[in-house]
C-alpha cells in the first residue's frame, strides 16, 4: 500500500504555498496545548505497562482500560522518591499528572506527580486467569514440550514481512545453514487484526507437510503492541501445533503466553533463527572429528591385526622350526637305531653263522671221525675177516689134513684090521661113516666161511 501510495505520489507535482516546517508545526502544537492546558484533567486512570526505570526517572505507559490507546508517562526521580508505593505493570492506577509536549520530537507525555494503585486491571486479571487455565491443562509443563528437529528440512516463520524480525530470523538461519529452505508466512503482529492473522499463519505452517518447525516472532515493542501474543486464540493455536514451535516475542524482558506454551522460547528473532537452524560449521567440524576418529581407529585396528598376524606367523614359524627339529631328531634317532639294528643284526647273524659253522665243522668232524672210525672198523673187520678166513682156511686145511691123515691112518689101520681080522666089512662100514663125517665137516666149514664173508660173524 505504501509502495502504491509512493508510486502515485511520485507522479504528482509538489504543492505550492503554505508548507510548514516540522519545527514550526511542533511549536504550534506546543502553543495550542499550552493554551488549552486548563482543558486537561489533573487525574487520569489507566493500566500501567512498559515500565523502564532509570536513575533520573521512570518511563511507563498508561493504557486505557477499555480501548487500545496508550500515553507515555514520566515520573522524575525527585518525584518518585517521595512516593511510598512502586509502579507495577498490569496494575490499574490513578495518575496525577500534567500534559507535556516536547517540540524536539513531537511527543506528548504525562509528567507524573503522584499515582495511586487501585489493583490489578481487568486485562491483567484475564491474563492471569488464562495462564492458570493453560497451566491446569498442562500446556505450560516442560515435559509436554516437543523437541526441536536437529536437522529440519524446512523452517516456517510467522512474522511480518515488513518487520526487522523477518530479516533477523532469516539471516540467523542463513548464517548457520545457508541451504535450509524457509517459508515465511506474513502476519500482522500487532493491533486488532493481529490475532486472526497470527492464528491463520500458525495453522497454515503447522499443516504444511514440508515444514518441520514453526517460528513465531516479532521484534520489540510496547506491551500493548505485544499483547496479541497473550490472546487466547493465538496462544491455543501455538499450543495446538503438532509441529514443534519456537516463539520469540520482543526482548528478553518481554514475557507472553505465546512463549510460555511454545515448545521453545527464544529471546529474539535472531535467537529463534539460531535455535531452529543447525550450525553447519559445527556439523563440518563434527564430521571432521568423526573422520579423524575413523582414520585413527581403522589404522589402529589394521596395525593391531597385522601385529597379531605377524605374531601368529612368528609363532607358526617357531612351531614349524621346532617340528622340523623334532623330525630331524626323529630321523637321526631312526638312523641311529637303524645303524644299531644293522650292526646288532650283523653281529647276531655273524654269531649265528659262526655257531652254525662251528656246529657244521663239529658235525663234519664228527662225521669224518665216525667215518674214519667206521672205515677203520670196517678195515679191521675186513682184516679180521681176512685173518679169520686165512685162519679158517689154514685151520680147515690143517684140520682137513689132519682129519685126512687121521682118516687115512684109520682107514689104513682099519684096512689093516679088516684085513687082519676079516676086517673087510668093518673097514668099509667105517669108511662110509668117515666119509659122511667128512662131508658134514666140509659142509660146516663152507657155512662158516659164508657167514664170515657176509658179515654175520
Amino acid at each position, binding site marked *: 500500500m505504501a509502495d502504491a501510495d509512493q508510486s502515485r505520489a511520485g507522479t504528482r507535482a509538489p504543492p505550492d504555498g503554505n508548507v510548514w516546517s516540522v519545527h514550526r508545526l511542533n511549536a504550534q502544537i506546543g502553543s495550542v496545548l499550552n493554551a488549552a492546558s486548563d482543558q486537561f484533567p489533573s487525574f487520569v486512570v489507566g493500566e500501567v505497562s512498559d515500565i523502564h526505570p532509570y536513575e533520573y526517572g521512570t518511563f511507563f505507559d498508561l493504557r486505557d482500560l477499555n480501548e487500545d490507546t496508550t500515553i507515555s508517562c514520566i515520573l522524575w526521580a525527585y518525584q518518585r522518591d517521595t512516593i511510598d508505593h512502586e509502579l507495577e505493570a498490569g496494575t490499574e492506577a490513578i495518575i496525577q499528572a500534567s500534559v507535556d509536549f516536547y517540540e524536539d520530537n513531537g511527543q506528548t507525555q504525562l509528567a507524573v506527580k503522584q499515582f495511586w494503585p487501585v489493583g490489578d486491571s481487568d486485562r491483567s486479571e484475564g491474563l492471569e486467569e488464562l495462564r492458570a487455565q493453560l497451566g491446569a491443562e498442562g500446556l505450560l509443563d516442560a515435559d509436554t514440550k516437543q523437541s526441536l528437529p*536437529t*536437522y*529440519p*528440512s*524446512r523452517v516456517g516463520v510467522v512474522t511480518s*514481512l515488513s518487520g526487522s524480525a523477518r530479516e533477523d530470523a*532469516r539471516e540467523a538461519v*542463513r548464517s548457520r*545453514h*545457508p*541451504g*535450509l*529452505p*524457509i*517459508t*515465511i*508466512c*506474513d502476519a500482522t503482529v500487532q493491533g486488532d*487484526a493481529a490475532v*486472526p*492473522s497470527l492464528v*491463520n*499463519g500458525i495453522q*497454515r505452517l503447522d499443516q504444511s507437510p*514440508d515444514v518441520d518447525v514453526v517460528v513465531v516472532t516479532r521484534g520489540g515493542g510496547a506491551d500493548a503492541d505485544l499483547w496479541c501474543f497473550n490472546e487466547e486464540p493465538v496462544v491455543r493455536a501455538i499450543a495446538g501445533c503438532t509441529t514443534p514451535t519456537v516463539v520469540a516475542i520482543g526482548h528478553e524482558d518481554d514475557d507472553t503466553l505465546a512463549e510460555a506454551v511454545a515448545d521453545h522460547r527464544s529471546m529474539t528473532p535472531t535467537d529463534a533463527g539460531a535455535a531452529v537452524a*543447525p550450525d*553447519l560449521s559445527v*556439523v*563440518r567440524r*563434527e*564430521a571432521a572429528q*568423526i*573422520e579423524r*576418529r*575413523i582414520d585413527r*581407529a*581403522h589404522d*589402529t*585396528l*589394521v596395525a*593391531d*591385526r597385522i601385529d597379531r598376524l605377524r605374531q601368529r606367523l612368528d609363532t607358526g614359524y617357531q612351531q614349524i622350526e621346532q617340528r622340523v627339529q623334532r623330525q630331524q631328531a626323529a630321523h637321526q634317532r631312526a638312523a641311529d637305531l637303524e645303524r644299531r639294528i644293522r650292526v646288532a643284526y650283523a653281529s647276531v647273524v655273524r654269531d649265528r653263522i659262526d655257531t652254525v659253522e662251528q656246529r657244521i665243522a663239529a658235525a663234519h668232524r664228527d662225521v669224518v671221525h665216525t667215518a674214519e672210525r667206521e672205515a677203520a672198523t670196517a678195515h679191521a673187520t675186513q682184516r679180521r675177516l681176512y685173518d679169520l678166513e686165512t685162519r679158517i682156511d689154514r685151520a680147515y686145511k690143517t684140520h682137513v689134513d689132519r682129519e685126512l691123515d687121521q682118516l687115512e691112518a684109520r682107514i689104513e689101520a682099519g684096512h689093516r684090521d679088516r684085513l687082519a681080522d676079516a676086517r673087510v666089512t668093518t673097514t668099509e662100514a667105517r669108511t662110509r661113516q668117515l666119509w659122511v663125517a667128512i662131508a658134514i665137516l666140509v659142509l660146516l666149514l663152507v657155512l662158516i666161511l659164508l657167514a664170515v664173508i657176509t658179515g654175520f660173524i
Partner: protein
Amino acid sequence: MGTDENGDIGERLARLEEIAETLEEGEVGLERAQTLREEADEQLTTLRETLDVGDGNIIEVSGEETGTTSRKVD
C-alpha cells in the same frame, strides 16, 4: 537442497558415529574394517556434498484467511 538431504545429515552423522565406535571397539576383522572404512568415506563424501549446497530457497506467503499469495524470494 531437498527434504531428504537435510534429514540425511543427522542419519549420516549417526551412521558415521556408529562406524567410528565399531572401529574403535576393535572387535571386527580386517575385511569388515575395510568395508566400514569404505562406507564411511562414501558417507563423508555425500555428507560434505550435502553441506556444500548453496542457499536454500525462501518462500514468502502473504495474505490472510480469505486469500494467499506466495512468491519465491531466492
